[in-house]
């Protein structure tokens, strides 16, 4: 399990190593066709900041080699904002006095139909809070069943499950799982997630092993930028985690996310660090140079001009037209969001903007009939 590997890596030593990287380390990494985690550390280090343009060129080259000039588009649907966790930075945390919604099966289907009117979406991400009693595995299974006729690729972003539960969901058409570790800094993780099932760091970080063991086709990982001041160290841990997973669960496809938290306007959680656009670009290029094949996903938390310009330079997957409240597309359009969407453009506008940048938006790259093979 990865938690055992993580224990062997010192956070402090990693942070120091990143900061002591030199221009020579960066040049060495750029000269290699295949980088290791140590090279990745050089590429995200402050020493690499002056190399932004050559990094962009290299990142673009690798991205085009592996993905072509395309961006895969998906749309999230929040099934519920009911949650028993108390993540200090999340709008849905348990002690926030707000109306809680769990979509009924009928409401779900209305949402699916409404999404299909927004664009030819085939990649759907179903999102829930953590409330296994009211929206547990059976509920998710039913949501997948109902979604199946409408979409060819179904992913979930829910609480970590047991391996056999992931396996059971694949029988209901599950193609992928996204789960954010949020941060790999264990002590601070416990501060950000004080109560509820999410407070168990090991259960969460080893959830990826369980997904791998269950044979989940696609695994999405993520660090929330804004929790840890030393975001470079956090991303290095993610890089170690990615390599570990690729080695052990080699049949699986991986994606990475590193969304930047926006400062709260209503006195809520304020990010501990604000990552600049240039730093985000550097990190994205570094990730692509480190791993030519991993999907890099940008959500609507990022502003439109960043998303449009970064498409083709390293990013390969994007959400579009997203609502981050349950039933936001049809049933309850005015509810409280989990986080504020920065890129509020309609899916069709995102599509047009991408085309203008010379990138082809891809709506479908899986067929549900493949899931039936061998069943």
């Amino acid at each position, binding site marked *: 399990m990865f938690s055992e590997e993580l224990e062997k890596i010192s956070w402090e030593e990693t942070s120091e190593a990143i900061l002591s990287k030199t221009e*020579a380390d960066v*040049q*060495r990494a*750029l*000269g*290699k066709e*295949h980088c290791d985690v*140590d090279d990745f550390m050089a590429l995200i280090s402050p020493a690499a900041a002056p190399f*932004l*343009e*050559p*990094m*962009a*060129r*290299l990142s*673009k080259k690798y991205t085009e080699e592996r993905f072509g000039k395309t961006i895969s588009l998906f749309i999230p649907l929040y099934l519920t904002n009911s949650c028993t966790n108390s993540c200090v930075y999340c709008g849905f945390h348990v002690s926030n006095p707000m109306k809680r919604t769990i979509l009924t099966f009928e409401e779900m289907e209305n949402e699916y139909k409404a999404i299909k009117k927004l664009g030819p979406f085939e990649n759907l991400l179903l999102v829930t809070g953590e409330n296994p009693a009211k929206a547990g595995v059976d509920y998710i299974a039913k949501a997948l069943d109902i979604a199946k006729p409408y979409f060819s690729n179904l992913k979930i972003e829910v609480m970590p499950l047991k391996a056999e539960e992931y396996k059971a969901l694949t029988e209901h058409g599950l193609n992928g799982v996204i789960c954010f570790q949020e941060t790999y800094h264990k002590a601070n993780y416990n501060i950000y997630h004080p109560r509820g099932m999410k407070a168990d760091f090991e259960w969460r970080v080893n959830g990826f092993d369980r997904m791998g063991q269950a044979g989940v086709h696609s695994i999405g990982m993520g660090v929330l930028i804004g929790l840890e001041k030393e975001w470079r160290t956090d991303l290095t841990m993610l890089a170690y985690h990615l390599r570990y997973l*690729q*080695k*052990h669960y*080699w049949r699986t496809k991986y994606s990475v996310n590193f969304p930047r938290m926006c400062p709260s306007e209503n006195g809520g959680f304020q990010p501990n660090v604000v990552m600049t*656009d*240039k730093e985000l*670009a550097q990190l994205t290029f570094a990730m692509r140079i480190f791993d030519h094949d991993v999907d890099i996903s940008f959500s609507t938390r990022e502003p439109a*001009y960043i998303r449009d*310009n970064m498409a083709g*330079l390293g990013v390969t997957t994007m959400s579009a037209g997203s609502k981050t409240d349950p039933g936001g597309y049809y049933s309850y359009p005015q509810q409280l969001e989990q986080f504020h969407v920065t890129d509020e453009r309609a899916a069709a506008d995102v599509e047009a903007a991408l085309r203008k940048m010379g990138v082809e938006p891809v709506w479908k790259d899986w067929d549900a009939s493949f899931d039936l093979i061998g069943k």
Partner: protein
Amino acid sequence: MKKLIIAGREFESRLFLGTGKFMSNELMEQSIVASGTEMVTVAMKRIELGDQEDDMLKHIVHPNIQLLPNTSGVRNAEEAIFAAQMAREAFGTNWLKLEIHPDPRYLLPDSVETLKATEELAKMGFIVLPYCQADPTLCKHLEEAGAAAVMPLGAPIGTNKGLQTRDFLRIIIEQATVPVVVDAGIGAPSHAAEAMEMGADACLVNTAIAVAGNPVEMAIAFKEAVIAGRRAFEAGLGAVSNSFEAEASSPLTAFLS
């Protein structure tokens, strides 16, 4: 330098030797000693099984050396399993280099039969080191089937052509959770050094030493090359000049300023 560990056994030397093709058993023994190797393969078909006085074996057996019987000559999994059981009895070791080549011309390993045999033999308690194609997917399958290491080829046996499969070896090394021993095709010390610089855990050399003008000197050269390559890998190689320096006419990151 880090020690190599296979199935719990530590090795100081990362050079494995094959014992075919030498002019004499005496020369073979001198080469083995000079190379500093701690792992030596021996083809079962070459040995008079049951004869403690077998001349070839007498020149191989050494307290520091792990004997690695190989199944060279068998053509399928069934024969390999039979040969393995005989080897265990004859040599008193459960270490095994699994080699299945139905094709007598190029001696290329049969992926399908090798995978089958690895699974069976691992279940029977053998420490299986399969000789295989430089096929990353196959190597993962072998690992899952219980192989203690994988031994992908650099080039066809005996060709001395070096790492013709380098792009695939690189992926195998990156993905492996068991040691990777580059086997077959290594024809010069520089080839061995290259494999070690890439991060291979060990190299197996036979023909290049056995048929050299001076096998003992060549054994020393390989010993030094393997050490140099490994040392370089652990030290971290320097920058290779790349085309990233070339300036694009309009900067890609202008939108950030």
